[in-house]
C-alpha cells in the first residue's frame, strides 16, 4: 500500500524518529523523577485542603481599606511594567544596534575600515553575548538578585524587567534591523556613508513599524511579568498576593485574583487596540496626528513614564547609594563557590529542576490538548446566518466554548508561582507541586495559543471541505490542523524553554528543584553559592534553548515560521504575552 506520509525532504526520517524517541524518554524520566503521583492529588487530605481554600475564597474581601490596598498594588504593578519597559528600551537600542550582524560583520554594509574595525567587531560580539545573558537568566532570578542588591520593593522589579526585557528587545531590534531590504544601505555605504548614517537613514526608517510595534508588544508582556515578580519580593500585586496567601487571608486572595485577571485582560485589549491603530495609520502623507494632538500624546507619554518611574521608586525616592549597593553586591558574588562538596550537593536539585520543567510542560500539553478543541472558535461556533439547523450538539456548543475560554483565562491568568502556593495546599511541598503549578499555567497559555493557531489558518481549504460535506470536527482535523501544526509545535517548544526558566524558581516557594537551595543561600548570605547557582541556571537555559532550537529547525520549515511569525517567536515573546502581535 502506498504511503500517505507527507514528503518532507530533510533531515532523514530516521534521525527525526530518534529525536522523537529521545524527547519521549526525557518526558518519561521527568514524570518519574518529579515524583508525579495522581493519587496524592486525589487523596482525602488534598481534597480537604483544596475545599478549604475554595470555600475561603468566598466572599471576596471588599472592605474599602483593602480595596485601597488592591488599587495601589495595581497602580504599582503598572508602574513597574512601564518603567521596566522604558529601561529596557533605553538599554536595548544601543545594544540592539551593536548586535546587528549586517552592520559589523564583513559584508556589503561593513567594509573593513582601519584600526577600529577589529574593536567594533569585538564590541558587536560582546553586545550579542550581553543580550544573551540578559535573556537566558530568568526574569524571576533577575528580580531575586535585585531584591538582594537594592532591597524589597518595586525598584528591584523595575530593574529586573529592564535588564530581562532589554535582552529580549535587543535581540528583536537586531533581527528587525538585519531583515530590512539591504539595497538602500548598500547605496549609502557605496557612496561613503558612515555607519551611523546607515543606521539612521537606511535601516531604522525601514524597520520602524516593527520596532514600534514590538516595543509596545513587550510593554504588554512586561506588565504581565510585573504582576509575577512580586512573588520574590519585587513589589506590585504579586507581593500582596503572596502575603495574603501566606497569612491564609483567602478572601483577600480572591479580590486580588479578580484584579489580576482584569489587569491581564485589560492589558491585552489595550495593546490590541493600540497596535491596530498604529498599523492602520496611513503611511504616506506623514503622521495622521496633527501638531496639537501629537504634542498631547507626547506629553501624556512623558507624564506616564515619569509617574511610573516615581511609582517604581526609581525617581525621587531613589538614594544615591543605589549604584554603590549594586556594585558592592556584584563584588560579593565573586568568586563563585566551586568546592566539590557544594557542587555535588547541587546534583539532585538540578535534576529535579529539569524534571519539573519536563513533566510540567507535558502536563500543560495534556491540559491544552483537552481544552484547545473546546476553545477553538472555528470548531465550536457557527458563522452567523450559515445554513443548516443545529443539532442537539450544536445548541450547547457555544456555552461549552465560553466556559472553556473562561477556564483557560483563569488557568493562564494565575501566575505559576501562585499556582505553586495553591498546589502546596493540596499535595504538600515538593516537586509534584511544582509540576502541577507549571502544568496548569502552561495548559491555559498553550490552549489559548493553540486554539488561535487553529483558527487563524488559511480559510480556503476549510471552505472546500465544508462544501464537500465535512462537519466542523472533520474540517478542523483535515483542514486546520495540518496547517497549524508547525506553529503549534513551535509554541510547545517555546513553552518548554519558558518553563525551564520558571522551574528553577518554583522551589523558592516550595515546589522542588534549585529554588529552595537558592532561597537558603540568599537568606544565609552565601553569595558565592548564589553566583554558582545563577551560572548553573544560565548554562542549563543556554543548553536547553540550543537543543530546542535544533529540534525546531529539524521538524519545522524555518523559512515559513520566520515569515509568518517574525522575531517574536524567536525571542519567546509570544509565549509570554499569550499570543503573537496581531
Amino acid at each position: 500500500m502506498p504511503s500517505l506520509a507527507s514528503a518532507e525532504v530533510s533531515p532523514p526520517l530516521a534521525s527525526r524518529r530518534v529525536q522523537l524517541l529521545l524527547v519521549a524518554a526525557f518526558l518519561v524520566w521527568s514524570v518519574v523523577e518529579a515524583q508525579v503521583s495522581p493519587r496524592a492529588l486525589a487523596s482525602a487530605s488534598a481534597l480537604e485542603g483544596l475545599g478549604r481554600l475554595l470555600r475561603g475564597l468566598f466572599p471576596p474581601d471588599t472592605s474599602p481599606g483593602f480595596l485601597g490596598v488592591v488599587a495601589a498594588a495595581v497602580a504599582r504593578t503598572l508602574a513597574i511594567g512601564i518603567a521596566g519597559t522604558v529601561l529596557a528600551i533605553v538599554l536595548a537600542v544601543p545594544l540592539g544596534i551593536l548586535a546587528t550582524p549586517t552592520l559589523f560583520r564583513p559584508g556589503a554594509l561593513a567594509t573593513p575600515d582601519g584600526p577600529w574595525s577589529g574593536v567594533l567587531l569585538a564590541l558587536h560580539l560582546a553586545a550579542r553575548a550581553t543580550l544573551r545573558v540578559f535573556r537566558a537568566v530568568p526574569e524571576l532570578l533577575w528580580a531575586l538578585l535585585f531584591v538582594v542588591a537594592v532591597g524589597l520593593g518595586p525598584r528591584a522589579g523595575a530593574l529586573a524587567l529592564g535588564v530581562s526585557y532589554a535582552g529580549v528587545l535587543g535581540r528583536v531590534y537586531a533581527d528587525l534591523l538585519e531583515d530590512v531590504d539591504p539595497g538602500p544601505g548598500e547605496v549609502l555605504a557605496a557612496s561613503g556613508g558612515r555607519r551611523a548614517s546607515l543606521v539612521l537613514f537606511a535601516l531604522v526608517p525601514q524597520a520602524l513599524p516593527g520596532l514600534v510595534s514590538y516595543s509596545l508588544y513587550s510593554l504588554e508582556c512586561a506588565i504581565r511579568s510585573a504582576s509575577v515578580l512580586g512573588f520574590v519580593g519585587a513589589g506590585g500585586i504579586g507581593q500582596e498576593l503572596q502575603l495574603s496567601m501566606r497569612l491564609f487571608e483567602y478572601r483577600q486572595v480572591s479580590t486580588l485574583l479578580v484584579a489580576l485577571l482584569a489587569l491581564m485582560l485589560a492589558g491585552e485589549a489595550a495593546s490590541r487596540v493600540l497596535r491596530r491603530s498604529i498599523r492602520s495609520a496611513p503611511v504616506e502623507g506623514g503622521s495622521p496626528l496633527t501638531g496639537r494632538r501629537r504634542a498631547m500624546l507626547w506629553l501624556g507619554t512623558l507624564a506616564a513614564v515619569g509617574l511610573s518611574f516615581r511609582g517604581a521608586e526609581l525617581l525621587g525616592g531613589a538614594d544615591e547609594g543605589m549604584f554603590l549597593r549594586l556594585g558592592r553586591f556584584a563584588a560579593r558574588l565573586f568568586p563563585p563557590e566551586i568546592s566539590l562538596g557544594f557542587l555535588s550537593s547541587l546534583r539532585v536539585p538540578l535534576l529535579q529542576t529539569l524534571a519539573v520543567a519536563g513533566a510540567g510542560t507535558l502536563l500543560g500539553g495534556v491540559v491544552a490538548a483537552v481544552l484547545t478543541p473546546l476553545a477553538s472558535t472555528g470548531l465550536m461556533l457557527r458563522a452567523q446566518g450559515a445554513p443548516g439547523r443545529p443539532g442537539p450538539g450544536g445548541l450547547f456548543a457555544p456555552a461549552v466554548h465560553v466556559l472553556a475560554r473562561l477556564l483557560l483565562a483563569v488557568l493562564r491568568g494565575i501566575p505559576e508561582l501562585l499556582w505553586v502556593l495553591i498546589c502546596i495546599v493540596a499535595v504538600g511541598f515538593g516537586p509534584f507541586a511544582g509540576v502541577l503549578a507549571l502544568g496548569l499555567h502552561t495548559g491555559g497559555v498553550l490552549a489559548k495559543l493553540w486554539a488561535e493557531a487553529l483558527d487563524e489558518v488559511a480559510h480556503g481549504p476549510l471552505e472546500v471541505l465544508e462544501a464537500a460535506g465535512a462537519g466542523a470536527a472533520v474540517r478542523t482535523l483535515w483542514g486546520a490542523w495540518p496547517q497549524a501544526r508547525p506553529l503549534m509545535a513551535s509554541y510547545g517548544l517555546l513553552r518548554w524553554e519558558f518553563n525551564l526558566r520558571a522551574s528553577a524558581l518554583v522551589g523558592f516557594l516550595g515546589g522542588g528543584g534549585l529554588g529552595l537551595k537558592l532561597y537558603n543561600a540568599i537568606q544565609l548570605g552565601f553569595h558565592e553559592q548564589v553566583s554558582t547557582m545563577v551560572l548553573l541556571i544560565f548554562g542549563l537555559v543556554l543548553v536547553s534553548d540550543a537543543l530546542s532550537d535544533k529540534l525546531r529547525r529539524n521538524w519545522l520549515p524555518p523559512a515559513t515560521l520566520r515569515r509568518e511569525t517574525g522575531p517574536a517567536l524567536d525571542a519567546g515573546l509570544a509565549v509570554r504575552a499569550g499570543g503573537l502581535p496581531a
Partner: protein
Amino acid sequence: MTFSLRGVRRRFHGRAGPVAALDRVSLEVAPGERLVVLGPSGAGKTTLFGVLNTTLRPSEGTVRFEGQEVMGLSRRSLRAVRRRIGTVFQQPRLVPSLTVRQNALLGRVGHWSLADALRSWVRPSGEDLARVDAALAAVGLQRRATARADELSGGEQQRVAIARVLVQEPAAVLADEPFSSLDPALRESMGELLLGVAARGRTLVAVMHDVDFALRHFPRVVGLGAGRVLFDLPTAQVTPSLLEQLYPRQVAERPVAPTPELGDAIACVR
C-alpha cells in the same frame, strides 16, 4: 430537477444600506444538464454559486436540490446534500502541508463519519485509496502523488482540485471560474478535464469568464447582470446583442468572442 431556485434574493449590508447581490433569481437545472452562467464582475455569479452549493443562505426564496428543500434541513442532512455536490473553486485551495494524494482523498470528507476521518489520518480505506489513484491517473498526476501540495505549480494544483471532485463522486458539479488563476495556454486542457468530470450523466453548472469557451462547450447559457437573470437560452439562440447587454461596449469591437477581462475592466470603471 437537480437544482431548482425560486425567487432567490440575497442581500448584503453595504455602506449605503442593503445591496442585493441576487434579485429574484429562478433557475431549473435538469439532471445531466450542462449549463454555464456568464456575467461581468459584480453580477452576483459567486453569490449564486454559494447558494447552489448550499453554503450561503438566501435572504428570500427557496432552494431545492433533487426535489428537497435545502435551507430548512438540519446540519447533518445538509452535509448529506453537500456530498452529492462537487465543487471546483476559483483557486485550488489545497491544504498546503498535505500530499497530493491526501488532498485528493479529501473528496471523501462528506462520506466520512468522524471515526472514518480519524482512521483515514492513519490509514485510509482501500476503496478510498483506489478512488484516489484512479482520479490522479485521470488528471495525469500519479507521479506527483507523494509531493506536498505547495510544491506544485498552479496548473497542477487545479488538477488536484479536479481529482478531489472525481474522488467525491458527486451527482452534480459546480465550477466557479475554475481557470481564472491559470494562464491561457492551460485553460483549454483544463476545460477538457472539467467537461470529462461532468461526463457519465453528471450535472454541470459552471460560472465563467471565458465567453468563447463557454459558447463552444455548453448547450445552455444563463446571462446574469446586476443580480438578475437577463436571459436563459440554448446556446444557438445567444446573439451578439444579448452578449452586448451583458458586457456593454466591448462587444461592438469584437462581436463574437469578447475578451472578458477587458469587459470586466470596463464594467469596473463605470
